[in-house]
């Protein structure tokens, strides 16, 4: 089933043409990895999907993005961002306790019942593989956690609003290999229930977790294919060069 359809997407920030004529279909309950060198438009593409680019006043967009058949511009931004969650490059807990970080989203969307909040928080933390490590200290500040734990907390926070799609913006760029492995493990488990889109600088990570991989270069989508095909027999020479690390 197709979750997201992107048609002729062009994006500018002021005079900078950040994305050029991108067409893409993203299947549901799969992990799509997006790779490409710095400033190739990967993150811009990701932030289009939950309309976070709109916070920048110089942002302009042409073309359309449909989420399960609905144009995202017709969906209220708050509602869209509930459906399309996002995990950022640097773990950024809010300056609140562990519990309140996860409960923040549900509270914002009107879950007032304390019992219900408890349930949501526990479920989300379990899905993010963090519950066992923090269950005895939910009241302490989220800043006391290690980097990897903070990142999984951010994943739990995203899960707590029950999204359909989760966007990961280089979620492991600041993490050590063991924390990275735990985050990847969490992603592979989440695939059963969610559509995941992962922007990564780490080509090997894309190969490890992605069902499909897309390669962006200078704002253009060069190639998108099944990960195993992409990494063995890419169509485009530029993709091949990038994967082999000839430029980056």
């Amino acid at each position, binding site marked *: 089933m197709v979750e997201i359809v992107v048609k002729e997407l062009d994006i500018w920030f002021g005079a900078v043409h950040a994305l050029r004529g991108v067409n893409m279909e993203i299947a549901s309950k799969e992990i799509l990895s997006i790779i490409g060198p710095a400033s190739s438009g990967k993150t811009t593409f990701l932030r289009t999907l*939950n309309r*976070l680019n709109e*916070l920048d*006043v110089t942002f302009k967009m042409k073309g359309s993005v449909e989420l399960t058949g609905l144009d995202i511009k017709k969906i209220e931004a*708050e*509602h*869209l*961002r*509930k459906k399309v*969650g*996002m995990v*950022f490059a*640097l773990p*950024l807990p*809010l*300056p*609140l306790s562990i519990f309140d970080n996860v409960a*923040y*989203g549900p509270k*914002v*969307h009107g879950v007032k019942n304390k019992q219900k909040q408890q349930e949501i928080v526990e479920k989300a933390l379990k899905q993010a593989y963090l519950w066992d490590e923090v269950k005895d200290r939910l009241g302490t500040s989220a800043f006391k956690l290690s980097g990897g734990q903070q990142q999984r907390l*951010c994943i739990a*926070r*995203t899960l707590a*609003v029950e999204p359909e799609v989760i966007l990961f913006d280089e979620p492991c760029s600041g993490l050590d290999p063991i924390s990275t492995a735990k985050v990847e493990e969490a992603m592979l488990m989440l695939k059963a229930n969610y559509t995941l889109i992962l922007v990564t600088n780490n080509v090997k990570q894309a190969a490890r977790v992605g069902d499909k991989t897309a390669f962006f270069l200078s704002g253009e989508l060069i190639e998108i294919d099944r990960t195993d095909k992409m990494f063995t027999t890419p169509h485009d020479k530029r993709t091949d060069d990038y994967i082999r690390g000839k430029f980056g």
Partner: protein
Amino acid sequence: MRTAKEKFIEKLILFCGLASIFFVVLIFLFLLKEGISVFKTVSPGDFLCGKKWYPISEPAQLGILPLILGSLLVTLGAAVISIPMGVACAIYITELAPAKIKEILKSGIELLAAIPSVVLGFVGMITLVPWIKNIFHLPTGLTALTGAIMLAFMAMPTIVSIAEDALYSVPKSYREGAFALGATHWQVIHRVILPAAASGILEAVMLGLGRVIGETMAVMMITGNAAIMPHSIFQPVRTLTATIAAEMGEAVVGSEHYFALFAIGIVLFVISFAINVTADLFLHRKTK
């Protein structure tokens, strides 16, 4: 040669640094020495809690409670007006205003800070005083409320510009993180940005209040200068600062009255010191 020069510069900087502390200590000692003398004739209790300030009657009555209350009333009034307005203005500038309006507002507020207080007092006397008189049907427009409104204008630039800095320094990532969870703009502001900037906003408020309590010229011109016990904000009051400014010229050097004015200086010093320390305590508690 080089090291000699370095040493000289080092010593010069050290001297400048020490000088500022030295002057503060000197001022404080002088204040203390002159002010303490008043307690030979009045007990500290009678001085602070006495309800009558008749410094030149025979015998002189030196109770500064009406002056303290006058200062507090005007300061609190100014705080009630300027804090919500100032913080709201800072939020508008950082979060909501389009670029053009933002620039206009910012320079407008800087301009407000640049107006000398005596000019503000003068304008207040001509415009605000008759308004207050007519709106509330009072016998005079020279009231604590008038002073509070005028001082609120003076505290606003301080509060707005420092609170604005505090709001700007909230990491962009907090904002995006909360937006990405589907929070509305208002939810992001009051649940994430305001708590994150709380210590900076508190600092802004305290500095604003510090400016208000130390202000002299404008309050002297528009609060009516009556050293009587205030019962409401619609009465004329006299503040601690205005008393010193108005009476110092005519007090006989070495008289009770003269020493009493220095003692008022000590009280003012203690109050501003307390405000600064409270602000500091809050700031340090937050940053820990």
